[in-house]
């Protein structure tokens, strides 16, 4: 399968008054057409900053991409001028965000916002773009679509706003869609609707999807492959079944143990991970997870473990997993 997006050694540093923070440190990942890769981790692990770095949407200062390549359909986005990116964003690569209410323009109607996307990337006329906007709203399952076209975002529920965001993101048939916690702010029944919609759209168009989430339930429901991040670095990558069945990194195992599974035998206690994520400006010299790790060894506190490939399609950055 052709790789739609290939990220190699992406590094983003935040330059702040409290020092330099390596928010994304040498991240590599690739997504093929029709594939969904989940990017998982807790607050501050760099998953959202990775997505924004891929889109080159981070404000400089404080954030600067200090290295790496992002190849979209073979072309590297990193050296491109901003004008070229304006054409690519929204056309070849779309993005949807956690909070659809604040991602939409509150003073423009739904139609205006979708038409703007279409008109800036195609040579569609106003009437044709409006007709296409209605088609898109119907495609994303907007209830009562013709009437919603001329509504303002505040008149729509969170689920409907997210549908509008998705309609805008897929308007130009992008080959890659980045979804950053797209269902986190939604109720569980609406979340199920939006996940089903994204799957259907992907099956129809064959777009590649990067799905950023902290929710392992959503990962299990949507992903083909999973990349786990901790403190700015990729610590594990695997196919979704392999990851849940035999997690190799102690952090991945900890996350899975800390998530209750309905219907399974009730564990007496959840496996919690002691302590908390270290601050990015005070990372230990060795493995960032060492202080919380049940398998910590002396070596972990001195050296940063690099990614190794213990089996085909699997990567892990852990000394304990190497010796196991």
């Amino acid at each position, binding site marked *: 399968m052709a790789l739609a997006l290939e990220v190699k050694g992406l590094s983003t540093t935040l330059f702040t008054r409290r020092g330099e923070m390596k928010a994304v440190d040498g991240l590599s990942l690739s997504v093929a057409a029709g594939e969904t890769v989940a990017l998982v981790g807790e607050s501050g692990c760099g998953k959202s900053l990775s997505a924004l770095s891929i889109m080159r949407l981070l404000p400089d200062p404080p954030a600067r991409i200090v290295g790496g390549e992002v190849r979209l359909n073979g072309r590297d986005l990193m050296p491109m001028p901003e004008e070229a990116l304006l054409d690519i964003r929204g056309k070849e690569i779309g993005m949807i965000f956690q909070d659809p209410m604040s991602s939409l323009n509150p003073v423009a109607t739904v139609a205006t916002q979708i038409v703007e996307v279409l008109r800036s990337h195609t040579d569609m006329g106003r009437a044709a773009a409006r007709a296409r906007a209605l088609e898109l709203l119907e495609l994303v399952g907007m209830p009562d679509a013709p009437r919603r076209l001329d509504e303002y975002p505040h008149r729509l*529920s969170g689920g409907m706003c997210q549908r509008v965001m998705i309609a805008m993101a897929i308007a130009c048939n992008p080959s890659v869609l980045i979804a950053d916690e797209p269902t986190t702010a939604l109720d*569980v*029944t609406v979340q*199920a609707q939006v996940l089903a919609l994204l799957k259907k759209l992907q099956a129809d168009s064959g777009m590649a999807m990067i799905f950023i989430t902290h929710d*392992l*339930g959503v990962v299990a429901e949507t992903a083909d492959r999973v990349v786990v991040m901790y403190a700015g670095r990729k610590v594990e990558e695997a196919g979704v079944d392999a990851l849940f069945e035999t997690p190799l990194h102690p952090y991945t195992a900890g996350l899975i143990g*800390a998530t209750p599974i309905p*219907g399974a035998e009730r564990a007496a206690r959840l496996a*919690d991970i002691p302590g908390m994520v270290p601050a990015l400006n005070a990372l230990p010299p060795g493995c960032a997870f060492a202080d919380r790790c049940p398998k910590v060894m002396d070596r972990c506190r001195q050296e940063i473990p690099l990614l190794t490939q213990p089996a085909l399609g699997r990567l892990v950055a852990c000394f304990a997993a190497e010796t196991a």
Partner: protein
Amino acid sequence: MSLLSLRDVHVHFNTAQGTVRAVNGVSLDLAVGETLGLVGESGCGKSTLGKAIMKLVPIAGGEVIIDGVDIAPLDRRQLALMRRKVQMIFQDPYGSLNPRSTVGRSVAQPLQIAGWTAEATVERVETLLRWVGLPVDAKQRYPHEFSGGQRQRIGIARALALSPKLIICDEPVSALDVSVRAQVINLLEDLKSQFGVSYLFISHDLSVVEHIADRVAVMYLGLLVEAGGRDQIWRNPQHPYTKALLAAAPIANPRLARARQRTVLQGELPSPLDPPTGCPFHSRCPIAQDRCKIDKPLLRPVGAGTLAAWHFV
């Protein structure tokens, strides 16, 4: 004996667009030592019901009986005594701690109000901090110096100060990261086995409720649609809304997730300003019939200790 009995509780809010019946006649019992999970989607009235039990919102009708006493008619002074028995912890522990007050002062406040001596208070605060897994020197520090999980521990310490019988937990772990969420859930369970405190655990996260609750109550548009034992609700849900809610919850296991039958519930929550007639769920129900549009089903026993408000059991 029930520690908490709700009898036909109503909470109404008047807005410019009309009256919202946020809680529209809920009856529910919670036994001593029990954890009752209260689930439902945004706007179903679960948090409002929790606040009504603390009388933090005006009760428009019905009885809220705590340890045999109806709190609805009580005045401020009598209420203050009742509140020693029932405490509450909130979703946003930062928003519920005074940022200009040290942790020690925040935790000590309920004790001072209850008339404890300064000496006894100091000792009690240190004990409480130890119980929730915080260092004793935390009392000199301010809330902003702590992480989200630690702040929730401070909130729990304060709630425990006067040895309440019931703690109302309103989405206590929803703002926390996965690993920290497990720490707080484990802490709540440890405190329960240590002190026999009961919980009303309000959450939209079904997997957390399934883990922690003994019984579960499901709300929809201000009404209770089903209540029963945890295993009964998960293995054999009766009400179509309960079924839909459980089917929608993601399962953190890819094989189980793929194996299950999934009917995605269509539509969205109707406006609470203009709720549907008859059964409140009929506008989204996959098996609704004509009768559901007219008749409001009442909560009744449907076997195995479960109550459901459904016509077709």
